[in-house]
């Protein structure tokens, strides 16, 4: 492969990217969601700067169930600190906003890692299935069908129950739900292109398989994969909150939005902020990813391009 | 001879992505009752838009009839209410479209699709409508019992015949046929056209036959109008226009037909392209491509000149008239 080819490839991509951005930016809601996601990402990355992890996971029972905005003294690391609980405190006296911030970090990690894992596995399996065809294809598709016929939460519950309750198992349980979608996308694309005449023609003039993949298959799968990945991050975070709520994911005192909600259950009548804070955090995050995913789908759809 | 259709100064625009497409521009056309008028033009000339305008089916916000008048049998179409329009469509004016494969609803039987028009427009009962539907199928050469079947069970040619049966079911006075055979094989084409000719003659239906094929016009039409960039540039009987083409565009169309007798190997297309409908040229729309263009052509838009009922929109003939008059 010559340098020329790569250069042309990238030049074309940058033109596509600017065209895409013009289309995408017309969707104000999607742009707003993108900004929100970036803000959340920044918060997640700089969580330690905003609130120390230890502060957020240590109990301070005398400060339990404070209302949002209240200030109180917290005995932390052998000092008495004046602290304003911006969103109030939970039943253990821990700062809710602080826990939300660290929860954002955990959610982000879960989202990115699970999507990355399932993407790699899914694309590879989908490629094999599409390219090889025959028995291999049938087997892979059957496995996909089987996974899809078990409702997602139940599958995750089953996996975590069997493998034990750990962070890694949580990631596996969630990833398993996600990769069938990638398999389908990649396989469908390969199957539809494999037998096209222009692929035969390319082969005849000596194009290598790699070139065919780069030139014909990659452009077709990039868009749906990007869209699906965005939506999957949202699903992944949602799924993680379900499992944590059940006690099968991230366990307290580690701050995860789902387990914060399970702890809140007993107290919602007296301290509704315990219920609304993490819930709205989940809602906004997943909603933002869904809106971005939708916006991406519209912007990348060649049929809608001018 | 009376006129079944009179269109005057029709302007139709489409709006997309902040651009205005001028699909039909200052178009005037008359149709005689009981005749077949061929409307010839390339893709993009505005033929389908014209047909849909006659039915007042240009949908906002994508498109709008800006100005002009359309009179059908002396009724003002553009002034009709929705109710009146719906009653007219299918009953007095019918339309067939180009692609038979997608024109029929896949989840309804073909009998139902024909019967529903009859049921709506004529005071028939459901049973009567159904048996009339079966009859219509017979007239287009499909066994009536097949009315119970679904569109996917028929081939392309048969589907188009169903569409024809559908359109003629209520015996409309005017039939708008938008490239009815373009999507069909040549042999099927011949069958379908024979069928249409027969039915039209029996019912004395007036037909607006839209096509881009000059051969079909000669075979099937009494009169012809050529359309370019949204307006009619020439009109007359088939003998007049094809025997003595006046407009340079018409001449170009005829000239671009391969001439087998001469043994000349090269084709002679009209140089250039149709103008961009969002940015029409000043003056005569054809002037950029016209071999006889005069300076006047690029400045002023030509009017209609008439020579014994043979109409043409071209400055050449206006000049001659002027010259004749001054003598």
């Amino acid at each position, binding site marked *: 492969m010559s340098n020329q080819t790569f250069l042309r490839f990238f030049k074309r991509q940058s033109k596509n990217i600017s065209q895409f951005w013009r289309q995408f930016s017309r969707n104000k809601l999607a742009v707003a969601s993108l900004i929100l996601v970036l803000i959340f990402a920044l918060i997640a990355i700089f969580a330690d700067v905003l609130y120390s992890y230890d502060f957020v996971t240590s109990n301070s029972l005398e400060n339990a169930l404070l209302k949002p905005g209240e200030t109180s003294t917290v005995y932390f690391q052998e000092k008495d600190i004046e602290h304003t609980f911006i969103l109030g405190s939970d039943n253990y006296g821990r700062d809710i906003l602080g826990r939300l911030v660290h929860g954002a970090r955990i959610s982000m990690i879960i989202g990115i890692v699970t999507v990355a894992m399932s993407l790699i596995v899914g694309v590879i399996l989908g490629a094999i299935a599409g390219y090889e065809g025959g028995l291999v294809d049938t087997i892979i598709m059957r496995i996909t069908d089987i996974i899809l016929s078990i*409702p997602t939460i139940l599958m995750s*519950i*089953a996996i975590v129950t069997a493998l034990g309750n750990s962070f890694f198992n949580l990631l596996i349980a969630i990833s398993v739900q996600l990769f069938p979608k990638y398999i389908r996308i990649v396989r469908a694309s390969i199957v539809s292109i494999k037998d096209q005449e222009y692929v035969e023609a390319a082969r005849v003039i000596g194009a290598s398989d790699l070139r065919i993949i780069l030139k014909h298959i990659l452009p077709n799968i990039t868009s749906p994969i990007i869209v699906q990945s965005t939506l999957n991050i949202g699903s992944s975070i949602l799924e993680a909150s379900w499992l944590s709520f059940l006690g099968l994911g991230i366990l307290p005192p580690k701050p995860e939005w789902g387990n914060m*909600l399970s702890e809140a259950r007993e107290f919602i009548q007296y301290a509704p902020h315990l219920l609304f804070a993490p819930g709205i955090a*989940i809602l906004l995050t*997943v909603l933002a990813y869904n809106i971005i995913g939708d916006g991406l789908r519209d912007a990348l759809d060649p049929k809608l391009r001018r | 001879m009376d006129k079944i259709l009179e269109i005057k100064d029709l302007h139709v625009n489409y709006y997309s992505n902040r651009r205005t497409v001028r699909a039909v521009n200052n178009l005037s056309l008359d149709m005689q009752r009981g005749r077949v008028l061929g409307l010839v033009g390339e893709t993009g000339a505005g033929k389908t838009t014209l047909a849909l305008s006659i039915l007042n089916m240009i949908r906002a916000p994508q498109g709008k009839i800006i100005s002009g008048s359309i009179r059908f049998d002396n009724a003002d179409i553009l002034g009709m209410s929705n109710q009146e329009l719906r009653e007219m469509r299918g*009953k007095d004016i019918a339309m067939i479209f180009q692609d038979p494969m997608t024109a029929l*609803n896949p*989840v*309804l039987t073909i009998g139902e699709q024909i019967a529903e028009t009859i049921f709506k427009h004529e005071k028939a009962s459901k049973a009567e409508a159904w048996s009339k539907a079966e009859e219509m199928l017979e007239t287009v050469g499909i066994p009536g019992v097949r009315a119970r079947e679904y569109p996917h069970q028929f081939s392309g040619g048969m589907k188009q015949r169903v569409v024809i049966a559908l359109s003629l079911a209520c015996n409309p006075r005017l039939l708008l046929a938008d490239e009815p055979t373009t999507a069909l094989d040549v042999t099927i084409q011949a069958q379908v056209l024979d069928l249409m000719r027969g039915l039209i003659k029996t019912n004395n239906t007036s037909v607006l036959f839209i096509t881009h094929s000059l051969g079909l016009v000669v075979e099937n039409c009494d009169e012809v109008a050529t359309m370019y960039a949204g307006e009619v540039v020439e009109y007359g009987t088939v003998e007049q226009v094809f025997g003595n083409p006046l407009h340079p565009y018409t001449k170009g169309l005829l000239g671009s037909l391969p001439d087998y007798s001469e043994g000349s190997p090269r084709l002679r297309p009209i140089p250039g392209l149709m103008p961009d409908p969002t940015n029409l040229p000043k003056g005569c729309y054809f002037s950029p491509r016209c071999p006889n263009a005069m300076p006047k052509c690029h400045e002023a838009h030509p009017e209609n000149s008439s020579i014994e009922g043979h109409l043409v929109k071209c400055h050449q003939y206006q000049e001659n008239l002027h010259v004749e008059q001054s003598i």
Partner: protein
Amino acid sequence: MFRYIMRRILMLIPVLLGVTFIVFSLMYITPSDPAQMMLGANASPAAYKQMREDMGLNSPFIVQYARFLFGYKHPIFGYKGLFFGDLGRSYVSNRIIFEVIANSFPNTLILAVGALILALILGIPIGIISATKPYSVADMIFTVFALLGASMPVFWIAMVLIYIFAMNLRLFPAIANPGNFSSLVLPIITLSLPSLAIIMRMTRSSMLDVMQQDYIRTARVKGMDEKTVIFKHALRNALIPVVTVAGLQFGGLLGGAVLTEKIFSYPGLGSIMVDAIYQKDTPQILGSVCFVAITFTIINLAVDILYGFIDPRIKSTFSAKKKLVRGNQ
């Protein structure tokens, strides 16, 4: 038609086998030792060995899997197998696994079916309205609502609804049971929201798609009024994919029931599963998952078959083949 159904049933079998295989494999690799759970921590090594023998845990994987499906003959620990609806007793709770499931599943069905019906009754009309007036104010509101519905965890919706309607407005009880209809309102609404959102969007996009089709233009050109065009011509086509989606939603509903039931203290299979999770009752958990998965697969089969009835293209291809032979070109 018969052939179509048979073909679908045949494709079902490998999927069912696969599901049971996965569930069983998960059970197999669970780290907890059943023998230890039965005998406690202080028994002798010989006792453990004997117990493992009695419970059939020393046999090879395949044998155990076969027993899982078709039964295990043993005076104490025997059972008739999954195929016959019997997985024996849980070694944690000592209750008969399938009995527990059979007693609680009908309650879950009440919620799930109620939620699906609600989602369809509301979702389809709203979808139609959105499609006929796209980008209008109403459409925008509905779209936002649909996006919200797909982004909120069901258990949170449950808690919020309890907070508003049960605790503050005191309109509905916070605890639900199948006998009391008004107590079912909140859980059914909660459960239906995500499905409602999806069905709404699906109907909308399907209708928009269909309305662009040529045959809709034909119907208008024939002079049909808008109501006929929408309901007779468009809807029948548009609902076909919606039916499929609705069937798939049922799986999500069964899964969503898991948490919703717990929050409303509703005695359904979901609550059973959550309790089993807290008690680490692996056999009960996995037995329940297996059951739900099989039910879901069968429901998908039913939807597939139903699809064959409503789409004439499939219906006619598989019936009266003879009709196609004559009358051809």
